[in-house]
């Protein structure tokens, strides 16, 4: 059977999804570094001071602004500092640093183990739409696919919406965190989806999964049977199937206009991990203090795993061995859109979907453009990357804007497909950023 997909472009990078199945608990950190801004929008405002003692799950920074997300303590302990700490890109951002002592650490671990052992038997309460929205906002949930858009805002759309799409595509190579989550907690994800439907008064939800994850699709489909209005749709494996506009196109055929958000065509898109977090927040009052991350890439095969990691865990506490004697890149997220991290002191945040280690990832020498059109074929937005690259390189910002550079979703398909190894996206991104500034 040929599954549907988005209508333009797309590429087929090697999937490399070789992590072991299952989710393991990563020990809670003794020292958690919790950034105040783990989302798009304004940073949260801290409500604790240095020296305060905090419980695991306690609110430590509130979100008083229209576009923000609350932050909670991932471990019990003492607030050691409110300071600028290193982020993956090497910049410093305001963080709350919490240190745990031996006793609180052990108590936290016990409590955490108990929670995850009991989760399958936990009931889903019947609450009304306002309660759901309030609990989602209180739990500080953000889009967990990487965009980190505050979820509570998305659950209160201003436009008329009639379709909820749950993104379980995970089209990035290497990453398997959503796959693992869908296999482990299908019933809870479906329950979370139903809560989202209730909150937004949408009566139809589609969970979209690429056809390279049959187990996850089967598990969800089995539970979706009993859920009214929820269906599982299998899509073709093609990058960037999980791009918001591509996904909407593939599932519903609707085209989100340039510069508009999905609700303009009556659609809301959430990630599966977000749906699970919503269920946790509404049913168990658990704020977003843990998430699943994939550790993968050029590391020993038995170290490629999915972990349930506390937000604020420094990367250095994740067990993986960097390959010796090689140019190594450590990428947050997948290799197509993930950003490089330059430090292992940076913490796991709400938007961290995993770590991909790549060796031999140095750029190859570039050659002249031979106008082969591979980038035009690959572009899932129907743009002309070769043209945009030239405009970006020559600083012709107005021409780039006229050629719709603002529509670029920075998926990297053009750079991936160029046989001359041209850094298309580097220049396109430069043009896009410049056009946005003016």
């Amino acid at each position, binding site marked *: 059977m040929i599954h549907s997909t988005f209508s333009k472009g797309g590429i087929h990078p090697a999937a490399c999804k070789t992590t072991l199945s299952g989710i393991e608990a990563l020990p809670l950190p003794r020292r958690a570094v919790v950034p105040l801004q783990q989302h798009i929008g304004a940073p949260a405002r801290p409500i604790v001071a240095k020296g305060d003692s905090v419980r695991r799950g306690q609110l430590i920074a509130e979100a008083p602004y229209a576009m923000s997300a609350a932050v909670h303590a991932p471990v019990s302990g003492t607030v050691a500092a409110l300071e600028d700490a290193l982020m993956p890109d090497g910049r410093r951002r305001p963080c709350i640093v919490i240190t745990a002592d031996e006793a609180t650490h052990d108590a936290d671990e016990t409590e955490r183990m108990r929670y995850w052992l009991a989760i399958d038997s936990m009931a889903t309460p019947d609450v009304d739409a306002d309660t759901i929205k309030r609990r989602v906002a209180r739990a500080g949930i953000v889009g967990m696919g990487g965009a980190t858009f505050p979820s509570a805002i998305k659950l209160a759309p201003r436009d008329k919406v009639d379709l909820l799409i749950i993104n379980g595509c995970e089209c990035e190579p290497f990453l398997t965190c959503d796959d693992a989550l869908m296999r482990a907690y299908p019933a809870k994800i479906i329950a979370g989806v139903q809560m989202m439907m209730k909150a937004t008064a949408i009566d139809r939800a589609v969970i979209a999964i690429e056809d390279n994850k049959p187990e996850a699709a089967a598990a969800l489909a089995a539970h979706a049977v009993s859920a009214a209005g929820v269906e599982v749709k299998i899509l073709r494996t093609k990058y960037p199937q999980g791009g918001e506009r591509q996904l909407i196109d593939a599932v519903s055929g609707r085209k989100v206009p340039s510069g508009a958000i999905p609700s303009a065509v009556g659609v809301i898109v959430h990630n599966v991990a977000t749906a699970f977090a919503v269920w946790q927040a509404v049913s168990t009052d658990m704020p977003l203090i843990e998430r699943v991350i994939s550790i993968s890439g050029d590391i020993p095969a038995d170290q490629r795993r999915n972990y349930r990691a506390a937000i604020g865990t420094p990367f250095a506490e994740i067990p993986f061995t960097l390959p010796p004697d090689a140019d190594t*890149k450590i990428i947050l997220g997948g290799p197509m859109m993930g950003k490089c991290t330059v430090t292992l002191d940076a913490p796991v945040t709400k938007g961290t979907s995993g770590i991909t280690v790549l060796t031999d990832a140095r750029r190859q020498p570039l050659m002249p453009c031979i106008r082969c059109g591979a980038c035009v074929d690959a572009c899932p937005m129907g743009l*002309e990357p070769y043209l945009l690259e030239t405009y970006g390189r020559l600083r012709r910002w107005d021409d780039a804007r006229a050629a719709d550079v603002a529509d670029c979703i920075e998926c990297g398909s053009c750079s991936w497909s160029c046989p001359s190894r041209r850094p298309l996206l580097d220049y396109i991104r430069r043009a896009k950023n410049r056009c946005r500034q003016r």
Partner: protein
Amino acid sequence: MPPTLTMDKKMIFSPAPHVHRRRTTGHAMLHVLIALVPAVACAIFYFGWHAAAVMAVAVAACLATEWLITTRLLKQKSHLADCSALLTGVLLALNLPASLPLWMVAVGAIVAIGIAKMAFGGLGCNIFNPALVGRVFLLISFPVAMTTWPLPGAPDGATGATFLTLAKNGSPEFAYNVGDMLAGNIPGSMGEVSALALIAGGIYLLAMKVIRIWIPLSIIAGLTAVDLLAGFPPGLDIISGGLLLGAIFMATDYVTSPMTTRAMIAYGLAIGIITAVIRRWGAYPEGMSFAILIMNGVTPLLDRYLRPRRLAPKPART
């Protein structure tokens, strides 16, 4: 498990994406060369050692010209490794009659690389297909030598007329049988005679996703349309002359052909139509080279006006 992280090396960072597909420009050129193997084999099979000599001279002259210009004139590093000059040499040779004097072959190669490619800025910058410029230069400079076609397998230098010349001069029906035309046992440029060899190469290119089907298909469609209007059998027209060589290998040249699907179709249709018009009503019996060169010149315009359709529609202006 203790975290074991040694950090004595510099951390590398770069913008996304961090992975890349394997194919390079050189690979694409190599695929085209592989696809040309049947046609080259046919040329040598039918026209003997002189065909091989023409090919060797064309390739050598192309490589030498490119090497001299890049390293001596422009003081750059030689990039013969991208195989593009090699490919130009082979394609030029396949567009020549096997009996062409070798010095003329060299002249054609120098024009192809020196004028049509390097003078425009080298790989990727040329407007016109270098091999075709070389061929057309030779055709109008040495018309007699360029239209003297040796008979396949004739060691005594006997020559014959091509199917298209015969068609131009009168009744084509009984000149050559279709089997010979498919296999290549007819007079003509050494690479264009065997339709089957060219189609095999085309299928390889399509399978390897080096070319897309739109350009060859629309060339054939354009030619067929005019033939039907003119009352000429389109089937024979397609397998005769340089049509298949041009449609599969010359018109699909990346650098000089359009990049969007719509532009490719327009480009192909126009080539097909122009070719058929020249063949039926023009002064020359064959018009494929001219048609491709004309449309090469129009390519930037086609790319400009036949843009890909955007996924995101423009919001309605209020």
